[in-house]
């Protein structure tokens, strides 16, 4: 029987996770672990978090029965967990609220964040504005181009956006740069990591804050679906929205779970971002997990139509869930995601984020396999307003 109570005291999910950082960061990580252990049982902290999630984020998010998609896909009932309706338009804020509160309780005056699609950057800038914290967001120079509306949003919110020109100029490089900032400013700065990656305790911390998603579904499903769903589906870049939905269901073996990675131009090409499907275990950004690297162990550039999935690693808990066989990890290509984006927009009047569209693309394949009488919940992790310029450009449409 696999012990499902992870991580262990050193942050290990089986052989994955851990703390692979330079010495300077070990003490601040220890302080963060201690603070979190203390605060996660502190009634004042929990009450403040709860209030914020309810009145500021707008939780609980609805569980929506997508009847037209159900008919179109010809199989299982399709239910969407509407994280796109959260304040700032994605699941990311569930985590930034929690971490920013930690920062406040730790007496930090400055937060830093890395961002790919910009959703986590916006969510961080938002909570920084509300709490009166200084906020610096690192973003790959390429992503700054791809996601200019979110860059502007962050600036409106008072954050400083620092484009990162090193390496591949995407999310992984933004994370390197945020770690460099943190090591330089550890005294007054809290690093708000946006996904379930990084060194311990971040994968656990972010999972705990995102698990509100799955906990709500656990409560909503019996009343709305009549029982728990047969399958859960979520997209996986770093994997925070997926772990948030999956984690409360880990010990319910009748619920199948599917994590959908970015298949890019196809797993048979080098142009994808699917380390669980096509990578192998290594060490990146402070944890051991599945990564994409060349024969010398150098991290490979990745490709995805969606900036938020364009990352060569993945949260260590997903690596463990893959190895123990609890979650099925699959991939959807750029083209499949784009088709799903349009279909869901037209049939349900919901514009999904391109990241989310990967989960929808796989759900479309899974629906007829599961069959009528079954039901599945897809994490609609974010809204797609930020992506309309990208999509217009890809389809040769001029918006100006």
């Amino acid at each position, binding site marked *: 029987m696999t012990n499902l109570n992870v991580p262990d005291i050193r942050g290990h999910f089986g052989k994955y996770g851990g703390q692979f950082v330079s*010495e300077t960061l070990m*003490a601040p990580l220890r302080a963060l672990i201690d603070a979190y252990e203390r605060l996660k049982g502190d009634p004042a902290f929990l009450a403040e978090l709860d209030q914020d999630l309810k009145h500021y984020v707008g939780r609980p998010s609805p569980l929506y029965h997508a009847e037209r998609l159900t008919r179109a896909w010809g199989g299982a009932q399709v239910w969407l967990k509407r994280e796109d309706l959260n304040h700032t338009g994605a699941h990311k804020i569930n985590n930034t609220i929690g971490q920013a509160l930690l920062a406040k309780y730790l007496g930090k005056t400055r937060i830093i964040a890395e961002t790919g699609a910009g959703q986590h950057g916006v969510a961080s800038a938002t909570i920084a504005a509300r709490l009166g914290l200084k906020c610096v967001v690192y973003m790959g120079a390429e992503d700054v181009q791809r996601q200019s509306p979110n860059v502007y949003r962050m600036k409106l919110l008072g954050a400083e956006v620092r484009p990162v020109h090193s390496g591949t100029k995407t999310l992984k490089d933004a*994370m390197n740069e945020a770690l*460099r900032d943190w090591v330089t400013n550890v005294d007054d700065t809290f690093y708000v990591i946006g996904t379930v990656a990084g060194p311990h305790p971040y994968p656990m911390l972010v999972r705990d804050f995102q698990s509100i998603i799955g906990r709500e579904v656990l409560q909503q499903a019996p009343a709305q679906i009549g029982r728990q769903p047969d399958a859960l589906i979520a997209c996986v870049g770093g994997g925070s929205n997926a772990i948030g939905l999956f984690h409360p269901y880990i010990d319910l073996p009748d619920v199948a779970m599917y994590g959908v990675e970015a298949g890019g131009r196809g797993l048979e090409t080098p142009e994808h971002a699917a380390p669980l499907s096509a990578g192998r275990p290594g*060490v990146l950004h*402070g944890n051991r997990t599945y*990564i994409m690297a060349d024969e*010398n*162990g*150098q991290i490979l550039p990745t490709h995805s139509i969606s900036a938020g999935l364009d990352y060569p690693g993945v949260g260590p808990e997903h690596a463990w869930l893959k190895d123990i066989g609890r979650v099925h990890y699959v991939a959807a290509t750029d083209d499949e995601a784009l088709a799903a984006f349009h279909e869901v927009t037209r049939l349900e009047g919901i514009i999904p984020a391109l990241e989310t569209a990967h989960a929808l693309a796989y759900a479309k394949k899974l629906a007829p396999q599961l069959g009528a009488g079954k039901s599945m919940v897809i994490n609609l992790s974010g809204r797609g307003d930020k992506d309309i310029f990208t999509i217009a450009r890809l389809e040769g449409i001029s918006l100006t």
Partner: protein
Amino acid sequence: MTRLATTFARLKTAGRKALIPYITAGDPHPRETVALMHALVRGGADVLELGVPFSDPMADGPVIQLACERALAHGTGLWQVIDMVAEFRKTDATTPVVLMGYLNPIEWRGVEAFAQKAQAAGVDGVLIVDLAVEEAPGYLPALRAHGLDCIFLLAPTSPTERIEAVAREASGYLYYVSLKGVTGAATLDVDSVASKLGEIRAHTQLPLAVGFGIRDAASAAAVGRVADGVVVGSALVAEIERHAAAPEKLPELLRAKLAEMRGALDQLR
């Protein structure tokens, strides 16, 4: 005795400080590295730290990041770096060489295969920046079995219990990071370095080398007054960057720059 132990014992007897230059292997081009290593020894190096380039050097500042990118552009991988050490060893049997870098390139090849090749090539020690002592038990036995010293970092933020844990596992020397920051940062506070070194000495007999923020003869001498060795990296790598297009000048430039530091350190006697 290992080459590192022999070197530090000899320096101690002579009342001298260790001068430890760092360069990134393969920068500006793999064919230059061995010549640069010999030039550093002529300039007065006691130990060489040879950087293994990595695509995501998260503890390094912009100077060494760019060095990694130049080296990787020429395909400098871990095995090639080890080959460079083997080449260096053909004409220098005494200067210790420490490989410094990140865990993933070693992890990817397997620590046992790495340790075996490194030992055969004449590598003396390994400093893995992102391998904290807590995660080290999976790696240290293989490294030690192949006679490789395991050098660990200590930082201004290291509390007493971590200093003790690191002192228990480390061999060769300890590398104290002089400041909170990345390599190549500007500020160096010698008084706070001295006070932390005092704290560390209460827990270890190992020689203490200090790096980060040492850029010239004056800063080398200032740190040399309180440490057993000084590490200079970004200042040399910046020189390599400036002359990357005319690498034939580099051996003499690096030798001369190091010789100034050597001179300043030897004044301390």
